[in-house]
C-alpha cells in the first residue's frame, strides 16, 4: 500500500511518456495503428486508476496526509517548492479524474475513429491527464498555478481540435481569453501574497503558501493588522476559481467550449477541469474570512439559479448541458460556502459521473443525427435506439435527484444547507428547474412521433456502449451504497418538487410552451443577454486594438526602420574594410599588433613611473 503512495508521481508522468511515445510515432512514422494508440493510452490511465484507488484506500484507512517537497527555486527571499500532497481530498479527485479519463478515452475510440488527427487527439488527452493530476497533487499555490495554466492549454487545444472550422477556432480563442482573466487574477493574487508577506509580515526566507500549513499562515496574518490586503489576495484567487469553474458572470466560456468533440466536453468541461476551481477553493478554505465565504455562497447560488434558468430554454443539447454544468457547480460552490466540504465533494463526484454520462449520451445522439445538436429537429429517437433513451433517463434521474447517486448526493446537500432557509429555497428552485430542462430534453429527443427522414441511424460502436454502461454503473451504485442519513420531510419535499417538474416538462414538451411569463422566457432564451455583453466588450477591445495597432504602425515601425537604416549604412562603410586583398589584411594585423605593443609599453612606463 505504501508503495503506491510513494510512487504517486507515476500517475502524473505516465501520461507524459505516452504523449512522447505517440508523438515520436507520428514524427518517425512508425505505425499508423489507431488501436495501438488507444491501448497505450488506456494502459497508462488504467495503471493510474489502480494506483489512485490504492492510494485512496491507504490514505483513507490510515487517515494520512502525506507531503513531500523539494526546493525548485530559491531567490533568497522567496522559496518556490514543487511537491506531492496526498490526502483523502486529492486522492478522491485523482480517482475521479482517472476513472472518467479511462471511460472517455475508451469512448473516444468509437467517436473519433473516422477522423484524421486521431493520434493527436490522444496526445492532447494524455497531456490533459498530466496537467490535471499535477494540479491535484500540488502542495502549494504556485505549483497549482503552473498546472492551472497547463490545464487551460490542454482545454484550449482540445476545444480547437476542429480548428479548420472558423467558428471553432473563434470559440476556442474566446474560451482561452476568458480563462486568461481568471488566470491573471490568480497570478496577481499570488504576487500580492508575496508582496504582502515580505512587506507587512516582515518575513524573510518566505515559503510560498503551502496548503498544509495554511493555518499557521492565517494565524500569523491575523496577528498583524493588515487583513484587508490579505482579503484582496484571497478574493483574487477566488476569482480565478470562479472563472475556471464557470461561475456567473464568467460562465460564458463553458458554452463556447462546447465546440469541442463531445467526449472532450464530458471529460474536461463537465467532470474534471471545471472542478479544479472547487478543488483549489477547498484547499484555501482555511484562509478565507467569513465575508469571502459568503461571497462564495452567493456566487454559487446566483450561478445555480441563473444558469439553470438559462438552460431551461436552450435548444442545443450541449449548450443546455453546459449551462446545467455551471448551475450544478454553483450548487457545489454554495455547499463549499457553508463549509460543508464532504457534502460538496460527494455532490461533485456524483455530478461528474452524471454529467459525463449525459455528455456521452449527447455524443451518441449527435453521432446518430450526423452532428446535429438542435433538439428542435429531433424526436422519437426511443423507437430507433432504445438503449440511448435508457442511458439518458439514468442520467436525467440522477441529475434531477430523483433516483440513484443524484438522490443521495442531493439529499446530503439539502440536509447540510437546511439550516439556512434562503439557501434551501434556492437549492430547491435550482433542482426544480434542472429537473424541468433535463426531462424536457428527454421528452423532446426520445418521445413523440416525429421521425426525421434522411438521417441514418448508425449502430454505435462497442467501445462507446461499453464506456456508457460503465458510467451508468457508477451513477447507479452510489444511490445504494450511501445509507440515507434522514429520510425526512425535506427530502420528500425535494422529490415532490422534482416530480412536479417532470410533469411540467412533459406538458411543456407536448405543447412547446414553458408556462412562465413571456419576459422571463425571452430572457432565458437570450441567455440573459450575456453573449451580447461579451460581444460588446469584445468590440470595445477590438476598437482599442485598432488604435494600438495604429500606434504600432506609425511609431514603432518607423523607429525600427530608422534603426535598420543606421545599421545598414554603418555596416556598408565597415564592409569596405574587407576588400579581399591579402596584403590589406596583413596591414591590419601589423597595425593592430603595433597598437597592442604600444599600449603595453605605455602602460609599463606609466606603472613603473619611468
Amino acid at each position, binding site marked *: 500500500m505504501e508503495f503506491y503512495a510513494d510512487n504517486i508521481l507515476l500517475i502524473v508522468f505516465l501520461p507524459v511518456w505516452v504523449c512522447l511515445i505517440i508523438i515520436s510515432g507520428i514524427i518517425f512514422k512508425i505505425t499508423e495503428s489507431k488501436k495501438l494508440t488507444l491501448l497505450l493510452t488506456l494502459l497508462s490511465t488504467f495503471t493510474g486508476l489502480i494506483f489512485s484507488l490504492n492510494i485512496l484506500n491507504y490514505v483513507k484507512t490510515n487517515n494520512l496526509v502525506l507531503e513531500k517537497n523539494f526546493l525548485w527555486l530559491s531567490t533568497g527571499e522567496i522559496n518556490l517548492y514543487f511537491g506531492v500532497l496526498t490526502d483523502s481530498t486529492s486522492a478522491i479527485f485523482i480517482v475521479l479524474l482517472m476513472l472518467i479519463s479511462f471511460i472517455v478515452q475508451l469512448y473516444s475510440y468509437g467517436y473519433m475513429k473516422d477522423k484524421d488527427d486521431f493520434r493527436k487527439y490522444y496526445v492532447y488527452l494524455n497531456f490533459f491527464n498530466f496537467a490535471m493530476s499535477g494540479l491535484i497533487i500540488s502542495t502549494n499555490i504556485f505549483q497549482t498555478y503552473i498546472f492551472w495554466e497547463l490545464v487551460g492549454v490542454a482545454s484550449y487545444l482540445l476545444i480547437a481540435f476542429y480548428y479548420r472550422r472558423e467558428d471553432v477556432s473563434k470559440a476556442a480563442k474566446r474560451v482561452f481569453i476568458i480563462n486568461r482573466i481568471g488566470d491573471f487574477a490568480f497570478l496577481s493574487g499570488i504576487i500580492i501574497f508575496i508582496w504582502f508577506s515580505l512587506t507587512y509580515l516582515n518575513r524573510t526566507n518566505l515559503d510560498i503558501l503551502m496548503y498544509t500549513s495554511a493555518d499557521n499562515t492565517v494565524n500569523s496574518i491575523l496577528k498583524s493588522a493588515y487583513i484587508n490586503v490579505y482579503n484582496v489576495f484571497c478574493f483574487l484567487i477566488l476569482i480565478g476559481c470562479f472563472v475556471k469553474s464557470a461561475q456567473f458572470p464568467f460562465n460564458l466560456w463553458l458554452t463556447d467550449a462546447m465546440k469541442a468533440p463531445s467526449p472532450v466536453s464530458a471529460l474536461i468541461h463537465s467532470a474534471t477541469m471545471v472542478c479544479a476551481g472547487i478543488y483549489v477553493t477547498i484547499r484555501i478554505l482555511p484562509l478565507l474570512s467569513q465575508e469571502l465565504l459568503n461571497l462564495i455562497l452567493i456566487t454559487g447560488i446566483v450561478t445555480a439559479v441563473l444558469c439553470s434558468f438559462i438552460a431551461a430554454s436552450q435548444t442545443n443539447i450541449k449548450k443546455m448541458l453546459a449551462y446545467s454544468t455551471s448551475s450544478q457547480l454553483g450548487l457545489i460552490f454554495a455547499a463549499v460556502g457553508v463549509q460543508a466540504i464532504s457534502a460538496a465533494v460527494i455532490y461533485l463526484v456524483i455530478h461528474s459521473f452524471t454529467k459525463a454520462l449525459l455528455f456521452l449520451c449527447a455524443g451518441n445522439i449527435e453521432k446518430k443525427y450526423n452532428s446535429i445538436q438542435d433538439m428542435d429537429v429531433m424526436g422519437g429517437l426511443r423507437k430507433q435506439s432504445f438503449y440511448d433513451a435508457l442511458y439518458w433517463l439514468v442520467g436525467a434521474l440522477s441529475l434531477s435527484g430523483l433516483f440513484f447517486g443524484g438522490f443521495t448526493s442531493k439529499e446530503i446537500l439539502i440536509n447540510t444547507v437546511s439550516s439556512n432557509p434562503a439557501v434551501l429555497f434556492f437549492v430547491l428552485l435550482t433542482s426544480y428547474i434542472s429537473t424541468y430542462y433535463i426531462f424536457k430534453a428527454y421528452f423532446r429527443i426520445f418521445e413523440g412521433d416525429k421521425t426525421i427522414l434522411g438521417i441514418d441511424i448508425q449502430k454505435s460502436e462497442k467501445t462507446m456502449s461499453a464506456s456508457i454502461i460503465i458510467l451508468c454503473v457508477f451513477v447507479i451504485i452510489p444511490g445504494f451504497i450511501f445509507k440515507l442519513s434522514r429520510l425526512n420531510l425535506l427530502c420528500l419535499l425535494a422529490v415532490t418538487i422534482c416530480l412536479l417538474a417532470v410533469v411540467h416538462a412533459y406538458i411543456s414538451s407536448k405543447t412547446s410552451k414553458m408556462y412562465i411569463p413571456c419576459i422571463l422566457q425571452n430572457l432565458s432564451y437570450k441567455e440573459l443577454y450575456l453573449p451580447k455583453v461579451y460581444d460588446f466588450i469584445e468590440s470595445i477591445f477590438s476598437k482599442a486594438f485598432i488604435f494600438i495597432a495604429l500606434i504600432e504602425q506609425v511609431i514603432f515601425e518607423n523607429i525600427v526602420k530608422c534603426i535598420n537604416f543606421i545599421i545598414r549604412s554603418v555596416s556598408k562603410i565597415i564592409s569596405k574594410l574587407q576588400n*579581399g*586583398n*591579402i596584403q590589406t589584411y596583413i596591414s591590419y594585423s*601589423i597595425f593592430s599588433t603595433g597598437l597592442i605593443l604600444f599600449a603595453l609599453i605605455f602602460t609599463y612606463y606609466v606603472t613603473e613611473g619611468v
Partner: protein
Amino acid sequence: MLEITLFHYLILALFLFTVGLTGIVISKNIIKTLICVEIVMSAININFIAFTSYKNYMFLSGMIFALFVTAISALQTAVGLLLIYFIYKNKDKVVSEEIEELKE
C-alpha cells in the same frame, strides 16, 4: 676597431624584419611576397642566434629553434609555391591585387 655587440645584431635583424614586412605589404607579385616572408624568417633566425650566443650560450635551445624555423619556413615556401602555382593555373595571374576571392 668596433666591437660587435648584441645591439648590432638586433639592429640588423630589425632592418631585415622591416624590409620583409614592407615587402610583404607592398609587393604586387605574390612570389615576391613569398620571398619577403623568407626575409622575415631570417630576421627572426638572427634574433634567436644572437640572443643565444650573447645571453644564454650554455644552452643551445635558441640555435635549435633557429634550425626548426629554417625547416618550417622551407616547408611553408613549398606549400606557398604550390598554392601560387594553382592560382596561376586557374587564373593566369600572380598579381595579388587582382586576386580578391577572400572577399566572398
